[in-house]
């Protein structure tokens, strides 16, 4: 009882002093303008800028734009990813044929597709939704295919023996067995979707948190820029934590 408790306490102490040390070092470097000069505002200035942001109305307008783009991109990417994953996983030859292309495309930095989607749907929010969808698609399709391949063939044979139609097979055999891999893929997909949307906004946009960060960068307001980056990080961590909860629930469900 006492040994693990003491270990956890030690871990907490280490974390506290690490964070305190980083904050102190950052504050000192920022206040003295040592090493980085104006480029590194002190931690206190960034915290103050973050506080200013969360009580300002324009911030929430930009946040709403970003959230909408992420939601749209994630929805399109997740749905198409699951659908393609089911098709590729069900037909072994199809899957084997598509594998190398999906692997190569999944590795490619999605941001280079931004020019393509901007040519196709313009430079507005649609291009960020599309980039988010393309980003989310790959982790989801890969996880779904892997999940399909790990379904014991017995399940499928039992389903066939009961003469289930395709829709029934999906609902009664595939989806229950796929819950965990799909949710795991969705967690990764949401993460890269957020990245895709934010990077798209940073490159070219007229609204959204990425645009806001870019705007502060252009105005040399580095404290506000760092604050936006920190807020985006916190939101992404929150989304990741929520998805991790979902994964744990799916795990418990098995």
């Amino acid at each position: 009882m006492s040994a693990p408790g003491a270990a956890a306490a030690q871990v907490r102490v280490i974390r506290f002093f690490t964070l305190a040390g980083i904050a102190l070092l950052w504050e000192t470097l920022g206040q003295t303008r040592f090493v980085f000069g104006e480029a590194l505002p002190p931690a206190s200035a960034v915290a103050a800028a973050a506080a200013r942001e969360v009580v300002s109305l324009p911030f929430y307008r930009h946040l709403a734009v970003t959230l909408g783009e992420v939601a749209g991109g994630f929805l399109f990417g997740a749905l198409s990813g699951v659908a393609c994953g089911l098709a590729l996983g069900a037909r072994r030859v199809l899957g084997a044929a598509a594998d190398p292309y999906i692997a190569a495309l999944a590795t490619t930095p999605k941001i280079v597709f931004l020019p393509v989607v901007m040519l196709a749907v313009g430079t507005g929010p649609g291009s960020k939704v599309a980039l988010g969808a393309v980003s989310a698609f790959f982790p989801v399709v890969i996880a779904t295919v892997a999940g399909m391949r790990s379904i014991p063939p017995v399940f499928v044979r039992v389903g066939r023996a009961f003469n289930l139609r395709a829709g029934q097979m999906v609902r009664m055999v595939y989806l229950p067995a796929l819950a965990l891999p799909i949710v795991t893929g969705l967690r990764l997909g949401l993460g890269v979707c957020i990245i895709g949307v934010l990077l798209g906004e940073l490159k070219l946009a007229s609204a959204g948190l990425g645009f806001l960060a870019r705007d502060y960068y252009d105005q040399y307001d580095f404290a506000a820029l760092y604050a936006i980056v920190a807020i985006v990080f916190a939101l992404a961590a929150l989304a990741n934590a929520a998805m991790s909860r979902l994964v744990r629930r799916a795990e418990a469900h098995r």
Partner: protein
Amino acid sequence: MPGRAQPALSAAPALRGLAALFLLAAALEAVVRFGLVPKLVLAAPSETALAIGRLAAEEGLFRALGATLLTALAAVGAAVAAGLPAGYWLYKHPRFGAAYRNWLAAPFAAPLVLVYPVVLVLFGRTYASTGFMGFLVGLVAIVLYTREGLAAVPPTLVRVGRAFNLTPRQEFWKILLPAGTPMIFTGIRLGTIYALVNIIGVEFLINFGGLGFVVSETYDKFDTPGMYGAIVFVILVSGGMLWLLKRVQLWLRPA
């Protein structure tokens, strides 16, 4: 499963995949030729292929590839040089390992690339910025997998080392590193891919450097075939790197 059908199956999908790719290219070619999609939006595959040659001859595509690969090499080299000792240190000090592991795993999944505006402020539009972004994501993967790989070394091996009275240095070089290599290399492989992806992405975002810069440049010039050519080239490079690293990994773990 039936071993008999296996060899025939393993070649057929690749051929079908290629055939599907050619069909898709032919369809795109037709769509563009018949003017169903504006030429500014979609380049015909034949023009895209020609554009790769033009980019190579006139726009320094291979010089850009070299710049990107060298940046990635420097980033991964630095990430290995810093990540191996850091992973070893976290393994040797389990309390610190427990304290920092979740922190490292969080940016691993979270959007580390989004700190690039900060890096841009600190280092400007230079190779230091693109390289640092690659270093950062590579480092996280390498530290995590090094710690995991060393922690997974069978205790028996470590005890044998103790029985021979090995010094910590000998223990690391003769026991921990060889036994941990497969997983440590997984970290290096992932770190290399993340670094490459991030470097190309940041190059595109800040209009500077290698392949990412070429994509950005061709878009800004409305050179649609060139842009598609550059994107296809980036996909080929990513796929090639993936293949190469898998090969090395198989070679490290012959089984």
